[in-house]
């Protein structure tokens, strides 16, 4: 029996987790303006991917939530932001930022591998719709990987040296 539904379900899970992580990182680093704005911009992609996965999941007998809960409740987010803002005037959160970017990068790498698995299976099983889905979504996952890597490189010398 095909394990394709398993792959789709795992992708849905990992994309959801990546989207949530992006939003949480944005909230935690509200005072790092570029991180805040970009992480929120980038979080649009996992959201879109999850919708498309839910849609395509029907063909494979899956019921995947197209709109899972993305954020922690507003009240918690506000606390996260206030915490980030208050700590943001001290040097230690720099290390927290590096750790968050590192985690984000690893998470995006996991999702990227999941898209590879889907693309390979779609080719092997002659599933053009799934192949097209992987082709259009995977570059956006790679973009998140590249950004988290690049930003880690840009930020780390000052944070570590100071």
């Amino acid at each position, binding site marked *: 029996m095909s394990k394709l539904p398993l792959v789709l379900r795992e992708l849905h899970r990992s994309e959801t987790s990546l989207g949530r992580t992006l939003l949480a990182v944005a909230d935690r680093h509200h*005072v*790092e*303006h*570029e991180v805040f*704005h*970009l992480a*929120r*911009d*980038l979080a*649009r992609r996992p959201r879109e991917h999850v919708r498309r996965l839910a849609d395509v999941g029907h063909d494979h007998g899956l019921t995947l939530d197209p709109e899972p809960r993305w954020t922690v409740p507003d009240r918690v987010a506000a606390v996260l932001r206030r915490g980030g803002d208050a700590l*943001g*005037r*001290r*040097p230690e*959160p*720099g290390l927290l930022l590096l750790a968050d970017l590192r985690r984000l990068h690893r998470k995006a790498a996991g999702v990227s591998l999941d898209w590879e698995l889907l693309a390979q299976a779609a080719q092997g099983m002659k599933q053009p719709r799934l192949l097209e889905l992987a082709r259009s979504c995977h570059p956006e996952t790679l*973009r998140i990987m*590249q*950004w988290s*890597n*690049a*930003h880690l*490189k*840009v930020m780390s*010398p*000052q*944070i570590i040296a*100071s």
Partner: protein
Amino acid sequence: MDGNTRLCTATAAAALKETFGCDGQPGSYTDVDDADVIALFGHNVAETQPVLWMRILDRLAGQDPPRLVCVDPRDTEVARAARAGGGVHLAPLPGTNLALMNGLLHEIIANGWVDRDYVGAHTVGFAELEQRVVDYPPEKVARICRITPQEIRAAARVLGHAERLLSTVLQGFYQSHQASAAAVQVNNLNLVRGMLGRPGCGILQMNGQPTAENTRECGADGDMSGFRNWSNDAHVADLAGHWNLDPLQIPHMSPPTHAMQMMRYVENGSIGMLWVSATNPAVSMPELARIRKILSRDGLFLVVQDIFRSETAELADVVLPAATWGEKTGCFTNADRTVHLSDKAVDPPGGARPDLDIFLDFARRMGFRDKDGAPFPQWHDAESAFDAWAASTAGRPCDYTGLSHAKLRATPSGVQWPCNVEHPDGTERLYTDGRFFSAPDYCESCGRDLVTGAPLDATRYRVLNPDAKAILKAAEYLPPHEPPTAEHPMVLITGRTLYHFHTRTKTGRVPELQKAAPEVWVECSAGDARRLGLAEGDVVEVATPRGALRARVRVSGIREGVVFLPFHYGYWDTSMSTGTGASRAANELTITDWDPVSKQPLFKTAAARLTRIGSGQGPAPAPTVGASRPVGDGVAATRGGRGARVQELTGAGEA
């Protein structure tokens, strides 16, 4: 290290690097003389570069005038000239430039107005661009930009039928949402139309001032000197050779730390000393309450070097009085690569000294050494510094090796770089043969992702562009980060007036200029004025999520839903003080956000609210010349006076 250029035209440099692999203005001001269509994207040239505008006016008044395409939410002189001459004025909602550009490119491609031969021979990336802009038909773009699909089609028709297209770009794009991505699409427009490197076919990614160009090519914006590539070890070694340094002494582990990030490092305490020379962040940077707090921080040692006691100098630990132009000798390079020499005419007053003298004195006192233990830098005055700079540009795109103070003194109208043995009289326009500075081993930059700004690595660049072509980069439109809301239903943009420069440190001291625009004002449209019950000259409160200020309202031709504030006005010549509800600097209201590619702050995308406070006495203190022209009657025209008249005698007794 960073320059005021970061706030001003960093996006020009970024856009050129993305498309051509290297900074450097492709076109020339002389392209104005030959173009049959001039397209100005967010470029109110009549007020920001009035001399260039005079050149355009000459064409408009002459035979066979060019048609203008103007993209600006304000009713500028350029917009008026565009409409009057059979061109098109588009006034999109601020923050939607990229959607508009994608829409225009959609029409150009869909109607077959593409120069396939040029694209095939000289560019990479057309397939991706075509695929991207398919998603931006005029109807969809019209909804995003809140203009009509007919207007988009009309503008595309003018651009698509141009035979010699000159495109120019400035702050309306550079200081707005998705700045670099939008400016890059202007490059794409000229490339897909094959309009580059011939008379009248050019791109002018504009600068605000000549020193912006020098900031970029010398590396005062943190980039490598001479358009070298920080991620290319051979380039860094070459520069180290010129300066007789160990390559490790030249920081090149990542792209330069930009001004906005520096402020963040001061804020969290990891930068302890800041040296501000010839600029005024306490008025010019976004979210001033935050900037003042940062510059006043206990742990910060702030040095300010300026010709006047600016708002930033008020916060300094040490103030170094500097000489101004005319009191020192040095070179300027303008937006079309023309290098000028400006000789010293008079001595600076009192203890004021040229910036170069101050920096060299500092270097000597600090005991900076090159790798052989000799004093670094090796130069000791303006001319020896210029010669060292020229030597270090050998073989680079901005080749100055054919230039010297003597040659520039003998050529008062300037010389356009590259100027070397091969081009002894300089070079009018770049890329005339469809060859670019973009070869992987030669390029200044391997480019960045247009959405995230993440630098591309050299290996990927080599695959993308092995043969030194121009790169067509596409990007999707994303909504602005601070869209209008019920509480703040309008969009605030800040900008310039003809009569003032930057934070008025100079122009505010010229009586005629000061009289023409004596005080801050706020502009809104007639429709919004009616809706809000505002009359010309009423006192209003302008509020954003950062704060509020009061100003008199000018009812102007600006598009509905948009509010304009001039950013020039600070506090040095007013009794107003900050934090009392009586502030007047536009940047009290702007958001801290920057373009991820160019790192230029966004001054033109904030949500705002206008509230009537009361009636003023008479009209707003805004000039009637330029985009602030009132829509109603009864406002006295802005005019010069007798005091502004000058008689200049040249030669032997000629009048």
